[in-house]
């Protein structure tokens, strides 16, 4: 049995509490704000006692934002839908392209394989704004600007390198002999990939997919430039809360709560895979 002394346990408890406070307080505060009106939010000193209101959530869901200057239409729920669709579709496309590519990079050392893998990673080095200017031009020529396909394509810059490099590390961790053993028992190359490599790398693929989803979800600048209001995700849609008559803190808070809910739920669900997958991919990648 491992035994820890009492002071050690207390110190560890304090440290953990501090860390949790540090990371959770903003989320907690935003959660509280989402149930308040602008007046109670902006009151000084701030107070924890208020009568909770659901008006912020109501405004978001009905799409009618009532301000001092009148009623504004906001497309928050549409934005949320866009976010879900764009992120899910981007990750799906990335997985479809990235997992076989990762397998190829892990198993077959062909001429220039390292260079190609590195080039893919280097997509993440370039400042997005620099990439965006020429991209906007091209997209207008190609008729891709303000389309879901165009956005999903650009989102590959975020998702594909991530999935490729994390999953590659995972595939490299699987002993090639396990696959050989399967192949020598009379199975084709593709069956081996499907029945042995994919299931064994499953946790890594799940982790990479989740991480790519979070990154895609949080992306702001690509959609800001390349999409119009009807295609914009929540990150861009949130700008609508900065109105001429002031900033709607209550609605912003409610919008944040709503928009982090899906990723949070997904992350909590897949937490085990995420930690396992990240540590493996990071060390061995």
């Amino acid at each position, binding site marked *: 049995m491992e035994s820890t002394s009492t002071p050690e346990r207390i110190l560890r408890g304090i440290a953990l509490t501090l860390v949790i406070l540090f990371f959770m307080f903003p989320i907690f505060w935003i959660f509280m704000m989402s149930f308040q009106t602008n007046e109670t939010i902006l009151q000084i000193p701030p107070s924890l006692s208020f009568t909770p209101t659901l008006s912020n959530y109501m405004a978001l869901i009905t799409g009618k934002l009532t301000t001092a200057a009148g009623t504004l239409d906001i497309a928050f729920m549409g934005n949320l839908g866009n976010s879900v669709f764009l992120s899910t579709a981007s990750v799906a496309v990335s997985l479809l392209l990235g997992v076989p590519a990762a397998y190829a990079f892990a198993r077959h050392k062909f001429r220039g394989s390292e260079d190609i893998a590195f080039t893919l990673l280097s997509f993440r080095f370039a400042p997005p704004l620099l990439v965006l200017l020429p991209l906007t031009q091209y997209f207008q020529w190609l008729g891709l600007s303000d389309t879901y396909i165009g956005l999903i394509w650009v989102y590959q810059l975020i998702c594909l390198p991530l999935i490729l490099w994390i999953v590659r590390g995972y595939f490299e961790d699987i002993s090639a002999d396990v696959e*050989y*053993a399967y192949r020598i028992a009379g199975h084709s190359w593709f069956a081996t990939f499907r029945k042995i490599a994919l299931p064994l790398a499953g946790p890594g693929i799940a982790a990479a997919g989740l991480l790519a989803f979070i990154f895609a979800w949080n992306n702001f600048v690509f959609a800001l430039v390349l999409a119009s209001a009807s295609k914009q995700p929540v990150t861009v849609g949130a700008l609508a809360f900065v109105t001429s008559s002031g900033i709607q803190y209550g609605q912003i808070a409610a919008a944040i709560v709503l928009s982090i809910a899906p990723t949070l739920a997904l992350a909590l669900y897949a937490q085990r895979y995420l930690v396992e997958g990240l540590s493996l991919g990071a060390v061995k990648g």
Partner: protein
Amino acid sequence: MSDTALLIENVDKFYGPKGHGVHAVKNLSMNVRKGEIIALLGSSGCGKTSTLRMIAGFEPVSDGTISLAGRQVHLLPPVKRNVAMAFEGYSLYPPLTVRENIAFALKAKRLSQAEVDEKVAYIAKLLEIEDILGRYPSSISGGQQQRASLGRALIRDADLHLLDEPMGQLEPQLRALLRGRIKHYIKERGLTAILVTHDQTEANALADRIAVMEGGVLQQFDTPQKIKERPANLFTGTFVGEPPMNVFEASISGGNGSLSFGLNEGVKLDYQIAAFSPGVQAELTKRRKVVLGIRPYSVRRSADGVKARVAVNQWLGDQTHIAADFAGGTMVLVEHDRTRLAIGEDIGIHLDPSSLHVFDSETGRAISHGKELA
């Protein structure tokens, strides 16, 4: 030949670009008969595992051909070669139990469940893994995984069974027991097997013929007894045999019906020239420099022998290993009784001409073994 199971002809293996890559296997040719057990014996990096992987189809052959059961297979994918293999790293499927792992190898054959169960039970009993059949690979020891992997290979009915270090992780008692059982199993079914090992006891016990490899080159391919008694060159002579062969450089002089080997520090071994066959006499007298090899088991002590000084005297429980300073080198001799020799004590060494292995000092090729030409 109809009884040829495996035919390897002029096979080369390069890793990396030809010319400045690694030349792992050099012009290898060998012929394995149906029902034979062959051991590929050699130190690490000698090309034995590369050879095995080329036969299995995991490494492409750079040059040459491999035929199995009369078909050329070196261009076929592993699926189509009909070989079974036990991997050095076990390579069990983690999500499956040991039982499923072993039964898995039979999947392609579409046997009834009862037949599969019976075969698995039989092989599990043979390998002493009945009690872990329900466990997962991650929860069993290395030795158990190795036996499961061996079982997965042996249960198959393939043209050729490749066993890569099949018993490296087992305890000595179990290894000795399984050696016998596996040999019996293979022979009983008429299977053909190639086993890669660096353990010469294992090679001697299991194999009908041993292929000794070094530096990618096949040094000798013969029965265990021939390899021990008639090593083809200095490498095989010193590599096979425990403790290793004693080796001394010698210069030959002769005349007047005698033949002398002059060793370092003025040590001289004199023999009647009639102790060697005429062919050996002719070969030896035309050379000046040779290398003499003597197996530790054939070295005798006698009072009127050449003087040596005891440096180490070890009683191993069933035999004594004595190392003595002799002619500027060390002469190791093995005796079956416990000898009470003090360190520094002088002994006389007698080397019978029939126990002398003579090798060419430049090429290392064997010239003669005892009385006869190599």
